[in-house]
C-alpha cells in the first residue's frame, strides 16, 4: 500500500508544572481511519487531543500533518496564521460540551455557515442552503435552520456541532467524548450518525472516550492511555477481546459488557 498516514504524531510531551500529563506519545492516523483513545480520567487522553489539535501548546514533539495541497507540515512549528487556517478548514474539533463548540445565540444556519464565511463565502442564499443540507445530513429538522441552538436538546446540539465542523469537508476531525453527557438512546443515534458520516465523507477521526462501548462501535483502532503514556494499541476488537497489557485487561474486565 502506497498510502501515507494523514497524521503522524511523534514524541509528544506536555507537562503541567512537575506533573507530566502526556509523555512521549506517538501515533499515526490513516486516511479514512477512526482512531479511539481510551483510558480513565486523568490518563492524559484529553490533553493529548488538545495538544494535537493546537488548543494547548505541547512542550515537545511533532504533529506532522499531510495537507490537502500535498506537503506535510509540523502543526506545532507552523506559523500561527497558517496553523489556524488549516485548523479552520482542513481540521475539525468536536467538544464534549456543545456549548464550547457552538454559538448558542446564533441560528443553527449561522453556526453551520460560519466556517464557510471564514473562507470568504459571501452569498446569503447559498450559505443558508448549505446549512439546510447539513442539517439534513445530521438529522436535524431543516425547519429549524433559523432557530438558535440554545433551545435544542443536548443530542441536537451535538449533531449541530458536528455539522458545523464538517461543512468545510475537513480531512481530520478530533472529538473529545462526543457522546459524553447524552442519554443512552441519544448516544446510540449519534454513534450511528458518526459512523455514517465517517463512511460517506472519508474523514479521518481521533475520538477520545472513556466509554469502551463507544470505542468498540466507532473506532477502527484503539490506543490505551495510562498515566500519560500509551500502554497498548491495536485493532479495536483485538484489543478489547484479547487485551495483552495488564492495565488493558483491568480496563476491559471492569467495563460492563463491551
Amino acid at each position: 500500500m502506497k498510502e501515507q498516514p494523514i497524521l503522524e504524531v511523534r514524541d509528544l510531551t506536555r507537562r503541567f508544572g512537575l506533573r507530566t500529563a502526556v509523555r512521549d506519545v506517538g501515533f499515526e492516523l490513516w486516511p479514512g481511519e477512526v482512531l479511539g483513545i481510551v483510558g480513565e480520567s486523568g490518563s492524559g487522553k484529553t490533553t493529548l487531543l488538545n495538544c494535537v489539535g493546537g488548543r494547548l501548546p505541547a512542550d515537545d514533539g511533532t504533529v506532522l500533518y499531510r495537507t490537502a495541497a500535498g506537503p506535510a507540515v509540523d502543526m506545532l512549528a507552523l506559523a500561527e496564521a497558517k496553523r489556524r487556517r488549516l485548523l479552520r478548514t482542513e481540521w475539525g474539533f468536536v467538544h464534549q460540551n456543545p456549548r464550547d463548540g457552538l454559538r448558542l445565540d446564533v441560528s443553527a444556519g449561522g453556526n453551520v455557515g460560519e466556517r464557510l464565511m471564514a473562507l470568504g463565502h459571501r452569498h446569503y442564499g447559498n450559505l443558508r442552503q448549505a446549512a439546510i443540507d447539513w442539517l439534513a445530513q445530521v438529522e436535524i429538522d431543516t425547519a429549524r435552520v433559523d432557530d438558535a441552538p440554545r433551545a435544542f436538546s443536548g443530542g441536537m446540539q451535538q449533531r449541530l456541532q458536528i455539522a458545523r465542523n464538517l461543512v468545510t469537508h475537513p480531512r481530520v476531525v478530533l472529538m473529545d467524548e462526543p457522546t459524553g453527557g447524552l442519554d443512552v438512546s441519544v448516544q446510540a443515534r449519534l454513534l450511528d450518525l458518526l459512523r455514517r458520516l465517517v463512511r460517506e465523507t472519508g474523514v479521518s477521526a481521533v475520538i477520545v472516550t472513556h466509554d469502551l462501548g463507544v470505542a468498540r462501535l466507532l473506532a477502527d483502532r484503539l490506543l490505551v492511555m495510562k498515566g500519560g503514556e500509551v500502554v497498548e494499541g491495536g485493532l479495536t476488537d483485538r484489543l478489547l477481546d484479547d487485551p495483552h497489557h495488564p492495565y488493558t485487561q483491568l480496563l476491559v474486565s471492569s467495563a460492563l459488557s463491551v
Partner: protein
Amino acid sequence: MRADEPALRIRSLRKTFTLHLRGGVRIDALRGVDLDLFPAESVVLRGPSGAGKSTLMRCIYGNYAADGGSIRVAHDGTSVELVGAAPRQVHDLRRRTLGYVSQFLRVIPRVPAIDIVAEPLLARGIAAADARRRAAALLERLNIPSRLFDLPPATFSGGEQQRVNIAHVFIARYPILLLDEPTASLDDANRGVVVELIQEARRDGAAILAILHDAAAREALATRIFDLAPRLAEVA
C-alpha cells in the same frame, strides 16, 4: 484465486493467553496448528469444548493476536501474512476477503436490521438504494418478516438475530468465510435456508471454515473434517 492454491495456509499457529489479573496465569489455547483451506471446500472444525475451535477462528479473523506461527491469506491475488499484520491491513482483509459469522450479533443499538445487513456493501462503495434492495432480498430469503426490516434487531428473537448476522456476512460474498455456529438457535426450516446459502457460497468458490455442533448441518456441509486436539491444562 486458483483452486489449487489454498485460500488460507496456517502453519505452527500458537496462541497463549496471559491473565495478568489472575497472577499472570498462562493458558495455551493453540499449540502448533497446521491447516490449509482451499477454495470451494467446507472444512468443519471438530474437537471437544475448549479445544480452541473458536480461538483458531478468531485468530484467523484477527480478533485474537496469534503469538507465533503463520497465517497466510490469499488476498487480491497475493498472499498476505496475518500474524503481526498492521491493523489497517487486517481491516482491508476483512472488508474484502474475510467474512466472519460470530456467535453474537454486535451492532449499534438503534440501527435498523436492513441497514446492518447493507453495511458491508456500503463500505465497498455500493449505492445505498442498491445495497438496501439486496439486503431486503436476502433478509426475505432468510424468512425475516419485512415489517422487521426497519427495526433494530435488539428486540428480535435469538433466531432472528442470528439470521440478521448471517445476512450481514453473506451479502458481501467473501472468498473466505469463517462460520462459528451459524445454525445454532435456528429452527429446521431456517437451518435449511442457511445450509443452502453456505452450499451456494461454496459452489461459487468460497473457502469455508465452520464450527458446527448441529450434526445434520455438518453432514450436509462438511467436505472435510479438521480435528483439533484438546489443549493441555493451564501452565503456571
